[in-house]
């Protein structure tokens, strides 16, 4: 998984499968960035995510709960079509901002030149 920190924003480029095998490592890595590096916005880029289950989604919800009281926020970008249904069922779209790449490019000029 690739990551990039720009000021207080952590960009995470998820890859492969996110389940109980690696959910905890991801959680620890993000929490370290929140606590030690002052991260307040997390952007999950899901372009290359092949699989996610409730263990993986739990990490996202947990980070949302951790950031909210600090005034932080979470964005999810480019959910692949085969993950739409599980995202919908998880209820995350009700509390977290989901953006397709085009829209996010317009909203966030920092990402303009970025390549997948």
């Amino acid at each position, binding site marked *: 998984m690739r990551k990039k920190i720009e000021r207080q924003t952590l960009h995470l480029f998820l890859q492969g*499968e996110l*389940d*109980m*095998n690696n959910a905890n490592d991801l959680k620890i890595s993000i929490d370290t960035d929140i606590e030690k590096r002052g991260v307040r916005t997390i952007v999950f880029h899901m372009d290359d995510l092949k*699989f996610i*289950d*409730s*263990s993986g*989604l*739990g990490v996202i*919800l*947990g980070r949302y709960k951790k950031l909210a009281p600090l005034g932080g926020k979470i964005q999810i970008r480019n959910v692949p079509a*085969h*993950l739409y*249904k*599980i995202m919908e*069922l*998880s209820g995350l779209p009700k509390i977290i901002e989901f953006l397709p790449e085009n829209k996010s490019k317009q909203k966030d000029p920092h990402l303009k030149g970025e390549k997948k």
Partner: protein
Amino acid sequence: MRVNKLNLTFSSLPENVTIARTLVSTLGAQLDLPINELEELKVAVSEAVSNSIIHGYSNNPNNFVTIEIESSSEKIQIQVVDHGCGIEDVKQAMQASFSTDPDRMGLGFIFMQSFMDELHVESTLNSGTKVIMTKYLNHSHPSSH
């Protein structure tokens, strides 16, 4: 197609969630399951096996989980069995957002229910849990092969 039976028993290690998922996914592909249904089957199996390891065995790796599969051209039935701590109140456990672990979402059973056509859970405290899931194969779907 003839009935196919497969029975996989494995150590309660996290990496075996991947193995169980791959097994079911390979079988589903052989049954020409559309790609979306294949993904859903993988989630359901992932949830059931994760629950056995995380809740049933409290992440102790020295136990065993069994996944028993029976497939035909009509349906695929999957049982996930552990001999772990069991569930006190199955009805409550199956409710959305209910979890005995504050770090988890309580959506495992919801995903199993949503992604499979049938779900039955049998559990006895201190004896173990059996999750039985069935997916009917809809042959009007275009093949994803």
